[in-house]
């Protein structure tokens, strides 16, 4: 199907299903109930899930396949955002040209940075990319203020010279990003009993792009090109003595993943038309590394899972505060209640990084293959209960 093996096609269908029904899946608890704070089905967070999913899928093409650990990928995301906002300012509020330009600009930018950084490998490559990203951040923050808006970030204004479109709406507001008239922020709300489900136009646009990115990633993973990238990770000596030039392969992977990051940046700006330098900071680059490793570097679905998990932690765990905790443990005797709350408190609210750090450590130590490996282990437990199929020739005959 669509040029995919059966197994990959099934995976694609699962991803399509999950993203299309995400407003239902992420809102399992009725509105107004105690558990409603664990609902993640609101547009802003759902958009972040899929956008960071795209970012991580792209990063995985570089890191997961070739093993080159870039610590500066946020720079491409930031550049993509700036390009998209400039497109809104100068051309039109339609998101398509903005997204296309952000992909192109991020691609060109990653071509330059990749060309220089890929002269080295291993830790030196990582440091070079980190240096470039921090340089871009510093430039965007100060020297390039006319282009980037500096500290305040790049925003739309009432006097933008929009060539195809109006500078202001009739009511004197800044127009909003839209896809041929369909506003990105427009949502349809569906009430089913106590449940409230929100279907947001922006989310579905981003989800469409994520599915497309995911499909492309599968094709790349299963292509001769993808195999060469894995060969680079495995043994560069044999690679060159097999008549293959590793450098253009790695550069191509670098540019492709840079374009994915640009797409994510463009989508981010399309959801909310502003771009700030902090999107390029090294913490943002580190985040996508965490996502990919947490989910499972080199696996297809892993980065998406990792992105989802980190964004969920960031947005849901960080919202639990002391009052909520007291509410949960109100049934305990007073002294014990305070004790339990004091025990859990460092791990929630502002302490969500601590929880994430512990989860990350556990995953890296016990599941080096990430969440995907965890899933496979659980599946394996279920399978083992069935009679094991006889292995053909487990022992090799001596020759």
């Amino acid at each position, binding site marked *: 199907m669509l040029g995919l093996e059966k197994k990959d096609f099934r995976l694609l269908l699962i991803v399509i299903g999950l993203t299309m029904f995400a407003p239902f899946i992420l809102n399992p608890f009725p509105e107004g109930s105690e558990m409603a704070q664990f609902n993640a089905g609101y547009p802003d967070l759902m958009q972040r899930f899929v956008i960071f999913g795209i970012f991580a899928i792209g990063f995985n093409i570089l890191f997961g396949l070739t093993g080159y650990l870039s610590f500066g990928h946020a720079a491409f995301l930031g550049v993509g955002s700036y390009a998209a906002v400039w497109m809104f300012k100068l051309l039109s509020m339609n998101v398509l040209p903005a997204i296309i330009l952000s992909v192109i600009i991020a691609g060109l930018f990653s071509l330059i940075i990749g060309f220089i950084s890929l002269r080295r490998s291993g830790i030196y490559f990582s440091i070079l990319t980190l240096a470039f990203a921090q340089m871009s951040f510093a430039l965007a923050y100060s020297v390039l203020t006319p282009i980037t808006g500096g500290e305040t970030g790049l925003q739309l204004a009432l006097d933008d010279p929009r060539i195809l479109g109006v500078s202001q709406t009739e009511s004197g507001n800044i127009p909003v990003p839209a896809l041929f008239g369909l506003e990105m922020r427009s949502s349809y709300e569906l009430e089913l009993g106590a449940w409230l489900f929100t279907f947001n136009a922006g989310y579905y646009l981003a989800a469409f792009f994520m599915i497309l990115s995911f499909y492309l990633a599968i*094709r790349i993973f299963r292509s001769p090109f993808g195999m060469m990238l894995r060969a680079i990770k495995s043994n560069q000596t044999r690679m060159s*003595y097999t008549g293959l030039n590793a450098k253009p392969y790695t550069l191509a992977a670098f540019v492709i993943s840079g374009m994915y990051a640009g797409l994510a940046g463009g989508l981010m700006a399309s959801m909310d038309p502003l771009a700030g330098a902090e999107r390029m900071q090294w913490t943002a680059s580190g985040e996508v590394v965490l996502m990919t490793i947490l989910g499972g570097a080199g696996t297809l679905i892993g980065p998406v899972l990792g992105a989802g998990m980190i964004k969920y932690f960031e947005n849901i765990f960080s919202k639990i505060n002391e009052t909520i905790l007291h509410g949960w443990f109100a049934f305990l005797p007073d002294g014990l209640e305070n004790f339990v709350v004091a025990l859990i408190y460092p791990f929630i609210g502002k302490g969500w990084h601590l929880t994430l750090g512990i989860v990350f450590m556990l995953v890296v130590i016990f599941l080096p293959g990430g969440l995907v490996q965890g899933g496979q282990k659980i599946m394996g437990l279920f399978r083992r209960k069935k009679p094991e199929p006889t292995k053909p020739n487990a022992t090799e005959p001596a020759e």
Partner: protein
Amino acid sequence: MGILEVKGINKRFGGLQALGDVNLSVAENTTHAIIGPNGAGKSTLLNVLVGKLIPDSGSVMFDGQSVLGRKPHEINQMGISRVFQTPEIFSDLSVFENVMIPCFAKRDGAFRMHAIESIFAERGIQEQAEAILEDVNMLEKKDMIASSLSRGDKRRLEMAMCLVQDPKLLLLDEPTAGMARADTENTINLLKEIRQKRGITMAIIEHDMNVVFSLAERITVLAQGTPLVEDTPDNIKGHPKVREAYLGEAQV
């Protein structure tokens, strides 16, 4: 005029003359062994041939073209494949993928983006890969991850990866180093078979005299970076100069 012509190669590492005025001619369709005591410059010479080292002076012509200044992958594309002392394979990949990669390298050259094509799209590539695995008796292991193979199997896999490219010249760097007796015998048989079936020219560096005398048709003896003598195996065995420099200690 041989397929490989090495003329007047010099290479110094600081104060050490690793290669001094080395001349070597490997005739097409022969097995040519290069032997010599430790430090004779065998590995340096090999590294010059594959483009890993650039000599200070001299020329290396392969099939009528100079190889000097070319990168290893360019030299490989000219038709020189190399088998390493410790097998260099793609250990994280399956055996089948290991042999498919050289198939694609042969079809596409040093770089080509085939990002959308499926690995299995071209039937011919699969058949080639399967045929070569059949030849080295490894077809039933094609789905194994290469790192889990035994040392002998890794060697055979590496050989298959080189052979599937149909090289004009196969360079072997101590192909039986560190092998058990049985594995050594297997490798000798495999190399003999390759030689007979495919008619590939081979240049082999080896310590094990048993291996050298069962395979080589010509032998060059290197000592202290200079070729001492070049002759047939029978003449080499009895050559007084060689005995003095090298074989004396080995008691052949």
